């Protein structure tokens, strides 16, 4: 009974406000401007969730998890391993120049170092 009455009153009010006298709701909105704004924006619940949950999650995922942890951190280590292997190889490859003359020079130099080392250690007795 009460609920039917409430429903009918609601319909009547809506008809009066928006069909018969549309100036009334505008006036009400001006008079009670602060509560009107709160209700119009659904008590800012969406904005509240956005700033508390959604934005920190999206921003944190983008700037920290993806750009720093994933791209620089984890993938940086992976690519770093590849780069290290390449630079170590870059140094080691100088030993394999393919030039016979430089090999010969290294053999002579190495032999001299070995002979000197043995002599200094007390000869090959």
């Amino acid at each position: 009974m009460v609920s039917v009455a409430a429903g009918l009153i609601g319909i009547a009010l809506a008809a009066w406000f928006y069909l018969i006298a549309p100036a009334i709701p505008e006036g009400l909105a001006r008079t009670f401007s602060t509560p009107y704004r709160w209700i119009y924006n659904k008590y800012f619940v969406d904005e509240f969730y956005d700033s508390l949950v959604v934005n920190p999650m999206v921003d944190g995922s983008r700037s920290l998890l993806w750009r720093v942890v994933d791209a620089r951190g984890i993938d940086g280590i992976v690519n770093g391993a590849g780069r290290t292997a390449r630079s170590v190889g870059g140094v080691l490859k100088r030993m394999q120049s393919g030039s016979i003359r430089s090999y010969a020079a290294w053999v002579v130099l190495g032999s001299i170092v070995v002979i000197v080392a043995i002599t200094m250690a007390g000869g090959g007795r």
Partner: protein
Amino acid sequence: MTTLLDAVLFLPLIGFFVLLLIPKSNPSLSRMAALVISLLIFVISLGLVSGVVPEGYAFVHDSEWISSPPIRYHVGLDGLSLWLVILTTLLTPISVLASWKHIDHRVKEFFAFLILLEFGLIGVFISLDLFLFYVFWEIVLVPMYFLIGIWGHDRRIYAAVKFFIYTFTGSVLMLAAIIFLYNRAGTFDYTQIVAQLQSGRLALSSQVEMILFLAFFIAFAIKVPLFPLHTWLPDAHVEAPTAGSIMLASVMLKMGTYGLVRFCLPLFPNAAHKSAPWVIALAVIGIVYGALVALVQPNMKKLVAYSSVSHLGFVVLGIFSFTQQGLDGAVYQMLNHGISTGALFLLVGYLYERRHSLEIAAYGGVATPAPNLAIVFLIATLASVGLPMLNNFVGEYLVLQGASYSNFSATVFAAIGVILSACYMLWLYQRTFYGKPSESLSHHMPDLSGREWAAILPLLLLMLWMGTYTQTFLPSISAQNARILDMSKQRPAGSEVANAR
């Protein structure tokens, strides 16, 4: 004796050579031949379903391949491998259809590599000899390397080399462990090694067992991929052609999770149980981390790639719960992910063929010019999110239930991943399909063609089927998982057995 399984395994290899014989000047013949061959293999592979028995391997073929060391051609099929083989044979013709127009140079080689990939994948799932398994495991790498490296996008060489070296690193560790096992057991045969371990004839000290477990585990974890070994995946997916992405996500990643179930658990149960806490931790980190990073990807394929990291975390969580439900859910989820992520990559490929961009920002309002594409994409999206009545829900539910028995806090965090999956998928859908389409987009967005319908429809039907009638699939999977769990019970460590004698 030759079995139906041998035929399903070797037909792709024969098909590969047939495709090589087709003249290069006739690309449409190559396409048609690839479609006919792959469809034929799929139809024949359906004959395997009725032959699988709940009490062990079916279609066993065990004969000598190399006499010394004794490497055998030993293959067999059970409830675990059956559906993975069917998944492979189903997705190959779908990949052929996906490449129909998209691949327009070196057509013959492309389809030849695709069929060779099928050969390797089937071999991985049915090998019962560790050496044979390893051979197939590496065969798979070769065609995929070329599929990415030749037909990929701009940074294809970088992605292909990274993919190859990354996964190869893991598999060589596994090879060392396989050789060690051979030296101790005197055989590469998986069933014999398991029997020796169960009877105590082969006993590993807990330290040795842990090292062997890790060698296998790292190889599989890279393939899954488990956090933090996942960074090859987004690169490979973004650069791969559509067919490459489909086969990579839908089937190749399952090689890793399959290996965990088939080898890591029964061969090294003590080490697996001991490692469960940190493996579960990595799986849960992967679930949440993959979902959060997927949320902020500007590139569609990267988004789906990171979502795979999240979804595969579920599979690992289920496996290492050591419960029947968890393992059933994990295996079911392997198939689900193959269906729904395969569908997503296929549909992203459709979008790419129309607009030539993978950036989400290049889209918006696609539903207006292409309503059918929008509906189909929505179904795949909802399946991926895990909506009841669709396939992923079943797997995720079983995994969460199984995991809750062994580790409830991990289950709670994993459930967060389900929520996040709705966030990133629905947000992707909103930005791509809703809104007002730009002028240029409307002009280049025809709706689905007959060929495109033919490729996506089987996947949509399977999403519904697997979501509503699990009886087709789960009983055979459960029977095999019960056996795996029985083999994976903790055993007294090697030294204790030796002392007891």
